[in-house]
């Protein structure tokens, strides 16, 4: 029953953009219909997904819905529907008559295809849905294809996603070879670990490319920055998690992972996490910055998954449960708070027409609701209590501590780097989000656009508030989601023979609620006390004191670049910022300029030069293909003669 609800939900999403194709380009009716269809689809899908938790998992030759599928299905149905409502104002058909229809067609398709991937029971359906998803995402990224940079970013994405698909073809071919069928079933215990290792590595590269793991993230920052904001929210919040889904699914099929698999994922997660946030700190573009934070959060999720693999190798059920539950919960959490952040960034862009952080400022006064949503999203993404990011990071922390052998005899010393790395990621994220929240929403407006900003409409703020509510709910009552996560863990590692996995004895979920509530109550009490003292003592307002400086201007404020300067300095060895500083000036200096920019080390530092070099080498063979038919006939004859000689 519930699987049919899910399938109907998928169909609703898939066709949601179709009716609009037959409407006039300047009418909003098609868009409204698409939103309604999307909402119906999501309602059906969520009901079906939640319902399927209470019945034995469906498994036939075409679809298979277990707890892991459900965990990924829920954000797939939630975030795009909210994004579609947001799009009613943000990407109004009447204002975008050239690309609105295209956008909605592929928006529905990508949602349906993502859901399709997560319920596929065989590799054929998996690959078909995967390709539809990848190509729809390409058309979504290139929504504004009249822009040259957008097209370029789209091509980079296309190359990356097809490299990933290539890996998946190899992966599923190997899988078919070992298991003898296209069904996604566990490998038999017997075969040599060589093939299993190959499958694992192909999955890491293929799915890692889609998830945006460092250094496979090359397509991600540009694509997230250039797409419309609700599409960025969908891609960052949900789409890249399909890569994680693939990795989770395939790793569940591989029996007895050696220790180095988990170690590899753990190391990749740490690199991705630390460098992702380090690159984010160097960015000036609001959406590019958020995109690098996706790389960071994928790193945290990968660390959790790596920890779960380590736990399986060590036969430590507690590490498996904490690592995988943390990773799966972080999939949800990142889907929620990153969507909030992208949607509120979109509201800012909608109001000010710029993505440049250093041109903004002081928006909290003009856009109080957006500012509040952004602040809550920022606290959540930094993993701070009392919000949801803290819960998933806590689970991963606990697992990492335990995998060292704390309170247990078997352990693995390699995990010792995990907690400090996670702490570093958290502290860097705080630095980065203080920077972006402060530069965009606090202080005084740095440009005319920012000065005249207005609050976004209800269509845009309501979806953000719903997502913020979900963040608060998970942060304050993590016990509510624990049963779902426990089922996910049992579905992932049936070989652990633990029967029912229980998080309650492993993680202080009840205490998190207590601490979160205590924090909120105390904040309210202290806030009331402060306001009472203020009323008692009397308040006055004046300009910022600024150590007595008499004539401050908005341009004297600390910009995001100056805020980040020390940290960028600490990471110069990898960020390699390009700084164009003014040269030495004469006594009475002329107007001058300062620019700094952090390019992507993998894309701009390695891939572009090597591709350029490859193009240079191969272009020297271009004379062979001169367009001369005689020459081509000559090549054929030479080749045939060579073949004859060789035989």
């Amino acid at each position, binding site marked *: 029953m519930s699987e049919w609800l899910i399938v109907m939900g998928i169909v609703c999403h898939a066709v949601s953009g179709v009716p609009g194709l037959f409407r006039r380009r300047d009418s909003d009716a098609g868009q409204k219909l698409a939103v309604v269809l999307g909402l119906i689809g999501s309602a059906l899908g969520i009901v079906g997904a939640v319902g399927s938790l209470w019945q034995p998992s469906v498994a036939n030759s075409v679809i298979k819905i277990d707890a892991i599928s459900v965990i990924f299905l829920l954000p797939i149905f939630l975030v795009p529907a909210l994004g579609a409502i947001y799009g009613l104002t943000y990407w109004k058909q009447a204002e975008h008559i050239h690309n609105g229809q295209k956008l909605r067609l592929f928006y529905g398709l990508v949602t349906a295809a993502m859901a399709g991937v997560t319920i596929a029971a065989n590799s054929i359906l998996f690959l078909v849905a995967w390709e539809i998803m990848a190509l729809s995402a390409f058309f979504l990224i290139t929504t504004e294809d009249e822009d040259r940079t957008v097209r370029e970013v789209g091509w980079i994405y296309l190359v990356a996603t097809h490299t990933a698909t290539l890996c998946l073809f190899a992966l599923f071919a190997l899988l078919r070879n070992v298991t003898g069928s296209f069904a996604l079933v566990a490998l038999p215990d017997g075969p040599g670990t060589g093939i299993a290792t190959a499958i694992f590595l192909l999955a890491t590269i293929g799915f890692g490319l889609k998830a945006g793991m460092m250094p496979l993230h090359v397509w991600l920052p540009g694509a997230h920055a250039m797409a419309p904001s609700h599409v960025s929210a969908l891609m960052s919040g949900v789409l890249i998690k399909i890569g994680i889904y693939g990795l989770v699914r395939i790793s569940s099929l591989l029996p007895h992972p050696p220790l180095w698999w988990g170690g590899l994922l753990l190391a990749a997660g740490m690199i991705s996490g630390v460098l992702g946030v380090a690159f984010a700190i160097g960015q000036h573009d609001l959406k590019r910055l958020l995109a690098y934070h996706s790389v960071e959060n994928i790193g945290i999720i990968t660390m959790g998954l790596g920890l779960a693999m380590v736990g399986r190798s060590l036969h430590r059920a507690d590490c498996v449960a904490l690592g995988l539950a943390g990773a799966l919960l972080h999939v949800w959490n990142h889907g929620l708070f990153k969507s909030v952040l992208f949607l509120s960034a979109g509201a800012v862009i909608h109001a000010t027409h710029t993505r440049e952080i250093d041109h903004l400022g002081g928006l909290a006064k003009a856009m109080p609701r957006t500012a509040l949503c952004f602040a809550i999203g920022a606290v959540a993404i930094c993993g701070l209590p009392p919000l949801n990011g803290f819960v998933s990071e806590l689970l991963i922390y606990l697992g990492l501590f335990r995998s060292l052998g704390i309170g247990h005899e078997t352990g693995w010393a390699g995990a010792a780097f995990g*907690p400090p790395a996670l702490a570093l990621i958290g502290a860097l994220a705080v*630095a980065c989000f203080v920077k972006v929240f402060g530069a965009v929403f*606090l202080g005084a407006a740095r440009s005319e656009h920012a000065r005249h900003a207005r609050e976004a409409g209800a269509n845009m703020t309501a979806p953000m508030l719903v997502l913020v509510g979900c963040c608060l709910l998970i942060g304050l009552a993590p016990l509510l989601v624990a049963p779902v996560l426990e089922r996910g863990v049992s579905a992932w590692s049936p070989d652990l023979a633990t029967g029912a996995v229980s998080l309650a004895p492993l993680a202080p979920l009840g205490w998190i609620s207590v601490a979160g509530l205590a924090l909120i109550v105390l904040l309210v009490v202290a806030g009331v006390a402060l306001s009472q003292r203020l009323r008692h003592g009397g308040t006055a307002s004046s300009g910022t004191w600024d150590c007595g400086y008499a004539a401050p201007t908005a341009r004297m404020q600390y910009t995001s670049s100056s805020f980040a*300067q020390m940290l960028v300095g600490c990471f110069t060895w990898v960020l390699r910022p390009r700084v164009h500083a003014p040269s030495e000036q004469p006594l009475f200096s002329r107007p001058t300029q300062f620019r700094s920019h952090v390019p992507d080390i993998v894309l701009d530092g390695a891939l572009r030069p090597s591709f350029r070099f490859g193009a240079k080498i191969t272009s020297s063979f271009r004379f062979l293909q001169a367009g001369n038919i005689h020459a081509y006939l000559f090549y054929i004859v030479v080749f045939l003669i060579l073949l004859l000689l060789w035989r």
Partner: protein
Amino acid sequence: MSHIIVHIVLILGLPPLLLGVIGKTKALFAGRVGPPLFQPYYDLAKLFRKGSVFSTTTTWVFRAGPVVGLVTALLAGMLVPLGSHGAPVSFSGDLILFAYLFALGRFFTASAALDTGSAFEGMGAAREVTFSCLAEPALFFGFLVLAKLSGSLSLTVMLDGPFPSGWGVAGASLVLVAASLFIVLLVENSRIPFDDPNTHLELTMIHEVMVLDHSGPALGMIQYGAAVKLFVMGALLMRIVAPFTSGNAWADWGLFVAGMMALAVVIGVVESVMARFRLVFVPTFLVAACLLSGFGIVLLLR
């Protein structure tokens, strides 16, 4: 129950005295009489009675900064054991909540600084968050050592000295961790040689420059919160350095207070005999702190 009340009273009441002792020690070193021991209390009482001036640039974030800073420090105080008495709230994993509460406080104090739109306070905020990025891993390496030694993930059990396998077995690790935590304590609480709470050279300060625009009760909350933070982190450090028990529960409270006063004297001495480092050297020392406690865990895992 009565011990929980004592714990809460100490967390609420004692922190400003620590600042008084530090001030008195510094005055003695300088050959001055110095302000009375209870001067910080008088200052706070005065601030809470005063009126305030708010910049027209600021929003609710500016007022949230002091509130969040104080509340997070107080809550963290509920998680840390004072001397041989366990914390009122203790569960497996509370050490992570402990560290992240301070991070939450930092998020809002730094945001409040940026809310004024002043370049000075922006500088302070940038320095604060930058240095914490390096202090945080040092803290967690230290936690790893303690967790590994005690086999527990709750602060109360981790610090339940004398450690079963304590100073005798892992003395080297503990010395390294204590040294590293002392550096973290000085940096996070803006003490000399890393920061100077008394200077008025705005360009060189970290914490004080962030709160330039706060006044009246809000400034009082910030100073009180800072004192609580120093007290809480100091209690953590003192428990590692001096894990003594007297056997009598009430005498243990006296022992704890004496230990905290000794810590304040040590901080005062450090502040008196050292000059403030140049700002560029602060990260170097923090990396050293990370490496110290990193070595600590390597010694345990070898």
